[in-house]
């Protein structure tokens, strides 16, 4: 018998790309991704050879579906890696596959470059691609399952259920998007969305900037989610549709869609917070750890380094100085963001305060540069705080919002940004 209830955004998008009747959570399908995105990192530096020699794929069908991002280990510090990257550039040129070289951190650049097409289905090796969900794109990390997307026109997938979170209210001063994610984890557990899609909507979503929403959706994996998606709004469509690479209709959940769980989050109740070492699940109120001595700050990665983050840091640091002996690394997350930050004078203000500013790269996020020494403590608005993530396993990382990172740089200890705003 046909299920009379409505469909979620996820079910609608996966219905279209599986080419048959409407699909429901739990169904096993074969889905043809609209976009297959990848970065050139780790084993993926060898993937052109692998897909040819192992899977016998000489030429990709529909090469316009594929895109590569050179964002890790940029700038290259090893001549052998540069040679591998050259191999990838040549392969892309030969296949007619887009390669985005120096555009910035792939997940962020992908939104700017139109892969965040509302209603589209995109896959990547890496789960932080979920941030394209800000624009109504179903973007899933599928790990090495990505090879299936290179070798076959469609991938095998079980349609995920959805946890709907309705946002209400507005954030208090100094509180930022990262704190919303922390609040969800603290209240409902780091597995609140286990195996499901985190769907955001409600009036509160419209009070957040698109940057804020990219931060939340990009970190969805830390709620156990497969990915995240936001109901398209006039604002998100105004950004995404002119850039969109495909002509698709934006998709919304039906009012009677079936959710695995439905929660409400009042943004006015969200407090400043940190994820303390050793896990993103270890959330505490900022007031519990204020004063903890810190030597290094990092504002960047696909989890921050957006224009709103740079503005927040510049507001805090304007006319002030990074504490002597403290290293503050600030990395705009895309070339376009860097240009905008320069035009707004943010780069000058941050550099004048003593921040070390780099061109867009993923490398700081995993300690390939700016590595932490044993005994150091860092505050980071990046992705992870597991021991060893940014250098020595004997270093500690507190994850916090960019305003907290900036305030901490002034004081040399975990600090409340509100007195500086």
């Amino acid at each position: 018998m046909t299920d009379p209830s409505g469909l979620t955004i996820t079910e609608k998008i996966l219905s279209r790309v599986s080419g048959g009747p409407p699909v429901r959570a739990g169904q096993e399908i074969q889905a043809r991704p609209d976009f297959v995105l990848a970065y050139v990192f780790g084993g993926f530096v060898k993937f052109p050879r692998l897909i040819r020699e192992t899977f016998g794929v000489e030429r990709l069908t529909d090469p316009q579906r594929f895109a590569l991002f050179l964002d890790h280990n940029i700038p290259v510090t090893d001549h052998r890696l540069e040679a591998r990257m050259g191999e990838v550039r040549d392969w892309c040129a030969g296949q007619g596959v887009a390669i985005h070289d120096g555009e910035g951190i792939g997940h962020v650049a992908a939104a700017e470059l139109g892969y965040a097409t509302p209603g589209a289905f995109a896959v990547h090796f890496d789960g932080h691609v979920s941030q394209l969900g800000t624009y109504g794109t179903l973007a899933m990390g599928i790990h090495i399952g990505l090879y299936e997307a290179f070798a076959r026109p469609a991938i095998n997938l079980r349609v995920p259920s959805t946890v709907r979170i309705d946002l209400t209210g507005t954030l208090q001063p100094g509180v930022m998007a990262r704190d919303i994610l922390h609040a969800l984890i603290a209240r409902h557990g780091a597995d609140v969305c286990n195996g499901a899609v985190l769907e955001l909507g409600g009036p509160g979503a419209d009070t957040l900037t698109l940057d804020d929403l990219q931060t939340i959706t990009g970190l969805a994996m830390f709620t156990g989610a497969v990915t995240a998606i936001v109901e398209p709004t006039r604002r998100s469509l105004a950004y995404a549709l002119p850039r969109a690479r495909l002509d698709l209709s934006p998709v919304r959940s039906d009012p009677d869609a079936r959710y695995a769980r439905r929660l409400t989050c009042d943004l006015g109740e969200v407090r400043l917070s940190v994820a303390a070492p050793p896990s993103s699940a270890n959330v505490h109120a900022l007031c519990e750890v204020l004063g903890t001595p810190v030597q290094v700050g990092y504002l960047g990665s696909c989890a921050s380094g957006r224009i709103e983050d740079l503005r927040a840091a510049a507001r805090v640091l304007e006319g002030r100085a990074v504490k002597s002996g403290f290293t503050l690394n600030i990395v705009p997350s895309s070339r376009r963001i860097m240009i905008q930050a320069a035009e707004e004078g943010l780069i000058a203000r941050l550099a004048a305060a003593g921040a070390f500013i780099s061109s867009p790269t993923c490398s700081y996020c995993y300690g390939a540069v700016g590595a932490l020494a044993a005994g150091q403590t860092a505050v980071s608005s990046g992705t992870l705080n597991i021991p060893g993530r940014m250098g020595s396993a004997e270093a500690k990382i507190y994850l916090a919002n960019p305003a907290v990172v900036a305030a901490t740089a002034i004081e040399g200890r975990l600090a409340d940004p509100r007195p500086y705003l």
Partner: protein
Amino acid sequence: MTPPTLRGRVAWIFDEANFDVDRILGFEAMREHDAATLARCAMKSFDPGFAEAVRLGDLLIGGPNFGYGHPHGPPMAAMRRLGVAAVVAESFAPLYAMGEFASGFPQITCPGICRAVRRWDVIEVDWACHSVSNLTRGGEVRFLPFSAHERDLVAAGGLFNLLRSAPESSRLSAIDDK
């Protein structure tokens, strides 16, 4: 095709929620590329004797949301090298589970498993009945069935083997033609 019944000892119970498997090796060891070295380093900070104690066919037990964080491949590659046959957990972080299934490594979602076993108990995974039995103390816990694709991945020994062996279905071609 139903895989053969798994029977082995519980080599370790990661009973904390949201366990990040990178901790099995630590980041220093994860930068190693040599599989034998990785295997020797596994679990050093939990039990220095682990690599010597574990045997072919042993199993790991995980808590809720096992595999939380960034799911890097080396920790479980080390475990497979040591002979571990599967992970049975309360639940899995999805990206971790996808990666391990793609390596042909069974990830069995089994709510209630942590309370049903102790370290070194012998347990048996019955694929037909979807149950894990504790042969040492008795008792049985049901697990969630794999998807057809997960079954195929495990049977083929991973995604690469599956892609090499499985012809593209007519359905896939049909989707491609749209």
